[in-house]
């Protein structure tokens, strides 16, 4: 029983970390229909900003997150104008080519400018060390990630389902031409959605840095994980992504506990099974 509980806690923590890091990609892929393989690159840029702000400038952790989010969005705006705008609505393979190109560039530049060593974002004292849950201990930071995950999920859900902007977003996704004809400036909707997705990527990069350490190759290393999470959940669905993360977190964690040698097999067989049963994701809206 204690073991089951313990695995449950690990699964929740891991799943929520996945959620925070991947949700931005779900937004770009589901709402904007761009296969954005450069998602990891933006997450990494966020992480580097935070690392620089907190470690080298000595700012606080919260300020570091703010710097990361703002800084990454500022970098992303010209990229969106010059590059992404050309691939909205383009065939998926073209999008893949473009975003892989962007990723290569980001890796190369990061390697050149900051060197290949690991970067960390120092945690505030409150989040360091571990917390005793009675039956086991867990890193304080993991609890923070879980809270962040639920907050992000709730916030996004509110934004998309309950606000005026959310209505425009959903309309644009369903039929951009018709929405534009009704007087909604869809390019503004796209730009704002993109900014939100990038901000989430950067946020995830910082928050998840304890689990997925920051280095130049970050941008490609975890791309597969992000893609899997998003498609299992169904691109563009926030509850779907949440369920997918918790499910995949549980499968992965359980597999790793019971039979670590076959962990990979477990995970990918489960992915095949889920995707075959729910080809549009657990709660997908993208056709």
């Amino acid at each position, binding site marked *: 029983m204690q073991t089951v509980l313990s695995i449950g806690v690990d699964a929740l923590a891991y799943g929520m970390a996945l959620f925070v890091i991947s949700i931005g990609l779900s937004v770009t892929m589901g709402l904007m229909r761009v296969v954005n393989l450069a998602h990891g690159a933006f997450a990494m840029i966020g992480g580097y900003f935070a690392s620089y702000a907190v470690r080298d400038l000595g700012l606080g952790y919260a300020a570091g997150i703010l710097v990361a989010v703002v800084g990454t969005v500022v970098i992303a705006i010209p990229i969106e104008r010059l590059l992404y705008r050309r691939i909205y609505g383009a065939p*998926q393979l073209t999008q893949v080519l473009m975003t892989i*190109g962007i*990723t*290569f560039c980001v890796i190369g530049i990061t390697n050149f400018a900051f060197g290949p060593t690991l970067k960390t974002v120092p945690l505030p004292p409150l989040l360091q060390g571990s917390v005793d849950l009675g039956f086991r201990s867990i890193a304080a930071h993991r609890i923070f990630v879980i809270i962040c995950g639920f907050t992000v999920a709730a916030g996004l859900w509110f934004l998309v389902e309950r606000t005026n902007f959310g209505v425009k977003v959903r309309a644009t996704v369903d039929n951009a031409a018709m929405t534009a004809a009704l007087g909604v400036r869809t390019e503004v909707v796209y730009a704002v959605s993109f900014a939100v997705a990038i901000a989430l990527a950067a946020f995830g990069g910082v928050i998840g840095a304890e689990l997925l350490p920051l280095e130049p190759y970050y941008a490609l290393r975890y791309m597969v994980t992000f893609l899997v999470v998003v498609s299992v959940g169904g691109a563009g669905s926030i509850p779907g992504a949440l369920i997918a993360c918790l499910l995949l977190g549980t499968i992965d964690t359980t597999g790793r506990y019971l039979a670590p*040698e076959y962990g990979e097999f477990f995970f990918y067989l489960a992915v095949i099974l889920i995707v075959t049963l729910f080809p549009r994701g657990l709660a997908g809206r993208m056709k």
Partner: protein
Amino acid sequence: MVASLDRTIATPSFTRRMADRGVIGVLAILVAGLAGYLLMPNNLALLTQMIAVAMLVLSIDLVTGYCGVATLGHAALFGAGAYGAGIAAVHFGITDPVAMTAVGLLAGAAAGLVSGFVILRAHGLAQLVLSIAVIHLFHEAANKASGWTGGSDGLSAITPDAFFGAFEFDLWGVTAYAYGVILLAVVFLALQILVRSPFGMLARGVRQDQIRIAAMGASSHSVLLRMYVISGAVAGVGGALSAISTQVVGLDSLSFTLSAEALVMLVLGGTGSLYGAMIGTVVFMLFEDTLSAANPFHWLTIVGALLIAVVLFAPKGLYGSAAAFAGRVRRRPA
């Protein structure tokens, strides 16, 4: 597109034109092969590797370009061919290069059947993820079966026999290169016939409109699966060539990285055309090799920039955009 196909079939000289086109392509390959030999006589290993990868890219083109299947896991087929040929040589003493190629072809086709079975169960993004899962399972299986595959240390000590007892696979790699060029020409000819056959037409039809194909009474799933097996055979031949020429097979030949890189080469050249696949491979690998030799530390940035530039200025791929441009120029006077 269907209309244009009809017109092609209606032309009386169809057979001749098909033969012509195939022959021109084969001649082009042989000339390019000779040119490669004369221009880069000291770098035949790279050229041979390029041919092997070109077959992988051609094989992706068959399912992606012609049938519209999205895959980031095609190296599974290439790797199966490479390991098939390698294992045949190391564990079963089959060291005749042609026999090794045949084993690679069969292994590739078998892998094509298995992965096609899985990947064809979904579409779009879900399909992409299935293909990723497949390549990881293949990779992990090869890592586990280290008794057969050498695991992460690689399968080494593959020693193919000399061709006709005279042409050895040696340091200078002339034999391997010549064999590669011939294999590529044969594969190209076979594919050229395939994609223009009624079956090839059906495959294109599946890409464009599955429902209509179903209404015509054909099973799109079976078409796709058959195409996957053929594609596996092509990739398998490429893998076998790689195993024969480098005499070693590593886990990288079953990796996601190779799959993604090959897909990038295809899109770079232009999907849906055998020439596009080959041009994409040659341009990408030559570019990568030159850059990484010139600056081994920072070449990745420039490759990235190239990919972005291609999307911006040649969105149909190098060959596709060039063909479209040529078409426009030709049409203008008329």
